């Protein structure tokens, strides 16, 4: 799917003034905007979300990662009262969901799955109609959010004529219209072309810079790495790991090597660091090299032996991809499907 009309330059985001305040108090951590407390949802036999505990603080751009079917959307639907939890609850700015759902929803803007609008109405009218449900919305604010997502020129076209990418961006505009405390975006880049993805990520980063709390669900690791400061990884309805994105890396210090002759390189490396520290996947040699100096020595030796070194990828550059696969597979001993699912999530 390509949407050639969807490439305006990402304009500088305005708005959300109310949250641009000093959200990190000099003492202590910023206040909690969203938390869940043993949030659980069961559909018949299936445990879709299992005793979920998360904490999102003001100013966080929180990545909610997981393969398709992990329970991300079910969780988000519980935050916004579309689904009633089987047990547990969520708290949004001191209001419990589902108990004080109506109050909590005043502080939330966002969308779940594909944003849907009234097809026979213009974007402007849609924003007016929905924005006024949560409070009064000025026409100037509508212009403002349309500017933020670059839809100002098409504001008076029927949303039924919008492309997927435009609807996605209108979804973001609608999320921002009431300047909410918490912006929830469910896979906001799904179905977008590369330029559209880039625009949306830039927009989310900008929101984060302004101090807006964003809860972003995604199955794309590099997306979360690019825009989020904190993240949780969900698999089969359970949080596998939660923490700052910078810490969400494999703990081991492996180096991946790509050479002109992998078989010979393996022998040489094994002689150097010990056979048990060398493994091989379809593409790379994976070496537990120890400190950085060891890697340098390794490469020197390979080159000296006449082997061309095409790539050396240290652990911190390997990103969440492998970590994610490790986690989602290891928590899935009984069923063989997870590897396929997670693979599909790349």
């Amino acid at each position: 799917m390509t949407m050639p009309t969807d490439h305006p330059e990402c304009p500088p985001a305005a708005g959300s003034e109310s949250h641009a305040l000093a959200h990190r108090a000099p003492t202590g951590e910023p206040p909690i905007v969203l938390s869940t407390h043993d949030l659980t949802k069961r559909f018949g036999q299936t445990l879709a979300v299992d005793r979920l505990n998360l904490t999102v603080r003001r100013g966080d751009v929180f990545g909610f990662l997981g393969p398709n079917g992990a329970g991300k959307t079910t969780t988000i639907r519980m935050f916004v009262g579309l689904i009633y939890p089987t047990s547990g609850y969520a708290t949004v700015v001191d209001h419990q969901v589902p108990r004080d759902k109506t109050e909590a929803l005043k502080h939330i803007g966002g969308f779940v799955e594909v944003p849907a609008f009234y097809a026979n109405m213009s974007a402007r009218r849609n924003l007016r109609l929905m924005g006024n449900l949560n409070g009064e919305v000025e026409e100037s604010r509508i212009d403002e959010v349309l500017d933020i997502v670059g839809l100002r020129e098409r504001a008076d076209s029927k949303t039924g004529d919008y492309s997927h990418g435009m609807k996605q961006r209108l979804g973001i505009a609608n999320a921002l219209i009431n300047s909410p405390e918490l912006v929830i975006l469910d896979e906001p880049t799904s179905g977008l072309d590369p330029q559209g993805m880039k625009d949306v990520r830039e927009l989310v980063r900008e929101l984060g810079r302004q101090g807006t709390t964003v809860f972003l669900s995604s199955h794309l690791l590099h997306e979360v790495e690019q825009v989020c400061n904190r993240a949780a990884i969900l698999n089969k309805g359970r949080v596998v790991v939660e923490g700052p994105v910078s810490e969400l890396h494999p703990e081991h210090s492996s180096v991946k090597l790509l050479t002109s002759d992998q078989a010979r390189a393996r022998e040489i490396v094994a002689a150097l660091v010990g056979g048990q520290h060398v493994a091989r996947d379809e593409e790379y040699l994976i070496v537990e090299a120890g400190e950085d100096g060891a890697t340098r020595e390794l490469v020197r030796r390979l080159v000296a032996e006449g082997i061309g070194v095409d790539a050396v990828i240290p652990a911190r550059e390997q990103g969440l991809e492998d970590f994610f696969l490790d986690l989602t597979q290891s928590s899935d001993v009984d069923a063989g499907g997870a590897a396929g699912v997670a693979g599909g999530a790349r």
Partner: protein
Amino acid sequence: MKLLSRELTKLVFQKRSYVGWGGLLAVPLLITLAFYLNRNNHHDNGPGGVISLAFHNGLLMPLAAIAMLSAFLLPLLAAMAGAYQLAGEAETGTLKTWLMHSISRGGVLTSKWGTAVIYIMVGMALVFLGGLAAGALAFGLHATVLLSGQTASIGHGLWLTLLSYLYVLVGVICVLSLALLFATMTNSSLTAAIGALVVFIVMNILGAFSYFDFLKPYLFTSHIDAWQNLLRQPISWHPIVSGLTTFVIYIAALMLAAWYLFRRKDVLV
């Protein structure tokens, strides 16, 4: 109230709203046209009953129209109006967008019910005014003979017509509420509308057999035609009151059930 006006905005922006209204308006115009073209043939009086009274009097055209419409088209549109309100929005995905705002489920349900009722009211007003205008143009407005034989002035005739319309309105709101209840159980507006119509038709069939006469007072469908009792002098109130009581009980029970189901419904689409 705020929610109701929002829902009405959405209604006005739905193309299908106009299809239903157009269909309703067409009926009195077609009846008038048929009577007018046939005005010299006194042996063919059309479907008979109240409808034949309108043969030479435009004043009775709205009544002739409602007699025809209350049998099927009006219940059909009521079923669709009720079903579209919830299930139609589930189909387009806007239900989740709507519910993600700071509004209560009960308020959403009530405003949607109110919107569907207003939709039917507007449709019936079109039938009334369309029938009256076309009838006046074709046959003029005259004092009329009531079913009990006395004569009623134009003003009194219009008053009785209005009462008849209100009675029929309450009757079809039963179908509408039934459709709205079904719409809380399914995400397909067609399923909800057809479900309501199936119940409506089955009730009609039950009412048609004397064996099931003991059921008749409990079927809202067998009360709908009772509006004709308003066209007597004096008005025979008993069937009117028992009809209205049945309607109100049905509507209250159906809406209570709909609220119970919708209150904690998991919206997954």
